Every structure is written in C-alpha cells, then in structure tokens.
C-alpha cells in the first residue's frame, strides 16, 4: 500500500472502521472525515475533469468543492465535511458519467 498523504499526529485510540474506495477496503477511525479516511491511507481523492491531474482537496472548510467523491450509486459527497461511516462504498470518479453532465 502506498503511504498516505495525511499524517495522523494524535487521537489514534479511536475505534476503527472499514470503508471501500474504488472497491478496495480502507481502514479509518470513527470521527474521521471521508477526506482524512482516504488521505491517511492514500494520496488523492479524485481526478480533475479538466485534464490537469489528480486532486486531494484544497480548503477543508466546505468552500472550494475540490474534494468531491461519489457513492457507488452516483451520489456526490464533499469529502472534507462528510463523516466516514463503516461499509460506505466510494468512487474517486463519477460513476456512469463523463464531465460535463446535466445530472
């Protein structure tokens, strides 16, 4: 497994939970945001639709919308402000759609 982007510095005695990112299990902790769950285990959240590469969020305060990820049934989640929950199945690309979409 690749090293995570975020480094946990404290609060590491919380119960763990497992969610799935692009089908792969990711171990996170109760109280993590989706963003922290994904970036403590990996390096990126999504691929930019505009051809400029991978993205890993930017503002962490629900303002920039750079951290969108998707549920497997196509629902859009803002990773920085959505709590991680056990069993959640996420996709780093929008399922069944290409940009731009009318949704």
């Amino acid at each position, binding site marked *: 497994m690749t090293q995570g982007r975020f480094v946990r510095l404290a609060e590491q005695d919380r119960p763990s939970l497992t969610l799935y990112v692009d089908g792969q299990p990711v171990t996170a902790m109760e109280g993590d945001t989706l963003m922290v769950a994904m970036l403590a285990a990996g390096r990126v959240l999504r691929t930019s639709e505009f051809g400029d*590469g991978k993205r*890993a969020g*930017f*503002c962490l*305060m629900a*303002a*920039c919308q750079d951290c969108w990820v998707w549920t497997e049934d196509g629902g859009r989640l803002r990773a920085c402000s959505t709590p991680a929950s056990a069993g959640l199945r996420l996709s780093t690309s929008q399922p069944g759609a290409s940009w731009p979409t009318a949704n």
Partner: protein
Amino acid sequence: MADRELTPRIVVVGAGPAGVRAAQTLLEAGIRPVVIDEAARAGGQIYRRQPTNFRRSHEALYGTEAARAQAVHDGFDAIAATVDYRPDTLVWNIADGQVWTASERGYATLAYDALILCTGATDRLMPVKGWHYAGAYSLGAAQVALKAQACAIGARVVFMGSGPLLYLVASQYVKAGAKVAAVLDTSPLSNRLRAAVDLIAQPGILADGVALTRALAKAGVPVLTGVTPLEITGNAENGVNGVRVRLANGTERDFAADAVALGYHLRPETQLADLARCDFAFDAKTRQWLPKRDQDGRASVAGVYLAGDGARILGARSAEVSGRLAALAALADLGHKVDPLTLVHLRRQVASYARFARGLATAFPWPHEQAANLPDEAIVCRCEAVTAGDLRRVVNETGAKEANRAKAFSRVGMGRCQGRYCGHAGAEVIAACANIPVEQVGRLRGQAPVKPLPVAIAPEGEE
C-alpha cells in the same frame, strides 16, 4: 408562526464567535433568534471544534486563545436548546426578505424581520504555478486538518504566503509534532517596523505573534521574509514535491516538501450580503470590495446587519464584539432600549481591533504585483484549470476588463468555488493586463446558490 406576532424573528447566519455573541445578546433582550450554521458544531473556523469522540484539551487545540474558544463554545452550549438552532444547514440565497436554506431535511424558506450575517472568512489566495497539484492546500485547510482531525497535511510541510496565520499554523504544526520544512513569507521584514504604530493597539496579540516567530526559530524552522514564490514543483500524477522561491537577496532556492500550506491572510464571505443587495465599497488598503456598514454593523439595506470576519477581517476577538454590536443595533432598530454606554464601550474595542488590522495589512500586504508576473501557463482558476494566459487572452482579444464580463468569456470565477479562491487574483491579472486600477475591474457578483446544492432533496416548507 404563532410567536411571530409576539417577538420579531431575527435570523443569525453563522455560529462562530460573532454569531454566538449576537445570539446571546438577543436572548438577553428576550428575543429567541434562529441560528443557522453550516457546520455540525458551533464555534466557527478559528474556534473550530473537533468531533465529539476526540479528547484533546482546549489548551492543546487553541493555545493562547484556549480560554476565549472555551468561552464561546460554553456560551453557545448554554443557549443551544433555547434558541432555534439549525446546524448542518446552508443558507444558499437571500431574497424577498427570506433566507433560503438547504439541509438533509430538505429545502426551506424563512422570513425574517432582521438578519445578522456572521458568515466568516476563507483564505485569500494568490495563485502560483503548480498550486493545483495534490498536496497544495490553503493555510486554513492546514489548520483545520490539525484542529478538527489531528492530522498534518503532509510529512514535510512548507508554509508559504503572508499574514499572521502563516506563523500561527506553522507553530501549531511544530507543537503537534509535524515536520515544518520552512515558513516563506512574501512580506519584507521592514514592513513590520512601519506597522508597529498600529500594531501596538493590541499589545497582547502583538506579543503572542512575536512569541510564535521565536518558537519557530527555536525549533530550527527556516523563516524567510521578502520571498517571491516562483513555483510549487511536482507533477499532475503524484502531486507536490517542493517549492521554488526567489529569496530577498535575489537567489533562487528549492525546498523539498510533500505539502504546501498557501495563504495571504483572509477574505470575508460576502456572497449573502451581496444577495441581500447590500452596497459594497472598495477598500484601497487591502485591495478588495467590502460590504458597507456603519460602526455598529448596519448594512446599507434596512434590517440587515454584518458582523465578524464576514464583514471585515478584524479577527476572532473583534468578531465577539462586533457580533454583540450588530445584535444591539438590530434591537435598537426594533424599538428596544439599548444602553448607550455599552455601545460606546463596544465601539471603542472594535476601533482598536480595526487599528491593529490596519497594522497587519501594512505588515503583511496582499502581494498583488505577483499577479502581473504570473507565467501564462500558471492556473488561476483551480476549479476548471483556466490559466493566466487564458484570462489575458480574453482581456486582450475581447476587451473585457470588467470582472463579470471577463468571467463570462474566460470562466475564471465560474467554477465550483464560485470565485472564492481565484476572484481577487483574477481581478489583479485583468487589471495588470489592461493597465487599469484594480477597482475599475470591479468585483464578481454573488450568485445563488452560494454553494452547489444536491438536487435530490425535497422541499421542507415555508415558515
């Protein structure tokens, strides 16, 4: 609707230090306000709270501001059940004397007699080549990662930009055990001497700031001033691997890092004031458009009040005071008796914080000249990867020099952040390219919804 006849409905938007103090002040006067907050827990960003199952102390989280943060949190917890508190709720429009909200429960509208906007601030950003790479974050983001999630944004972090938050967050990282590669400040050190005459207005905060710089030096962190950012190095696939800067002495230098925290002080979130049709004026000192208000927070529109960093970047301490003042102004306008001595006392405090903020603007100026020197290939709009060259081409080929017109042609400001992170820099790029003062470029109009909304939620109702 029943109690609407008895007490006026006052809606407070935002539950940071300004919103909390405004709500308390209204309750003390016998009015039960509606408090709408986008976050799950009250406190705002600077006093942002960690999830309920985290255990770090206020002292560990907020340092010198621990007692203030605790007072704001405790103050709100004491009234949360009494006010009409609506957390996890976005106000996405203001029109026809109503706020329009969205939450997991659905969409709703809510009519108000008075509206107190305490919308807070986000980081003010100047683009630099490579700032779209994974691992480049706003300075505020770096702080939120630590405070709210006990994480560092990387294994080796460069703090680049300017402003008091640069030093605060870098020192919080050091204290928490993160590796800080360097603090790179674009402002020359000499500016701080010129600013001293105003900074002395708040000797306590000034002393705290000096102590932060000393703590960084003691920890062996390189702190360089008068730096010009040239590039965040890395690649589109793996993200950031360092920064390249020009030092004050003219030499170029690279710093290895897997994360960069980037910020140039803060900018107020003024979209809701804009949608409420408040007048704005250009502030030459900080080179930005700000909603007009009187000394107590009254906007140009009757019944609308502005407080905290959402109106002026005066800091969290000032936000507590301006929140109270705005509530008192609303009360006075609704016919309540307000003690004039209290007003004098609070206004005096805000004036002192305003003088300190002037000093900060002198010490850590917005480096607008960087916009003129941005290479054409540098991305200005991170949302849609629009470059400085794209924007300049629009200015040169279409003659569009007004912010909204240039946005229509270039899409800078039209992406999902709605201009929060590119708006100020985009205006500077246009101004430099067209060789006109930045105030002539104007400002991006606020648009509803102020943030993207999920389409799949149901109407909740009208109140």
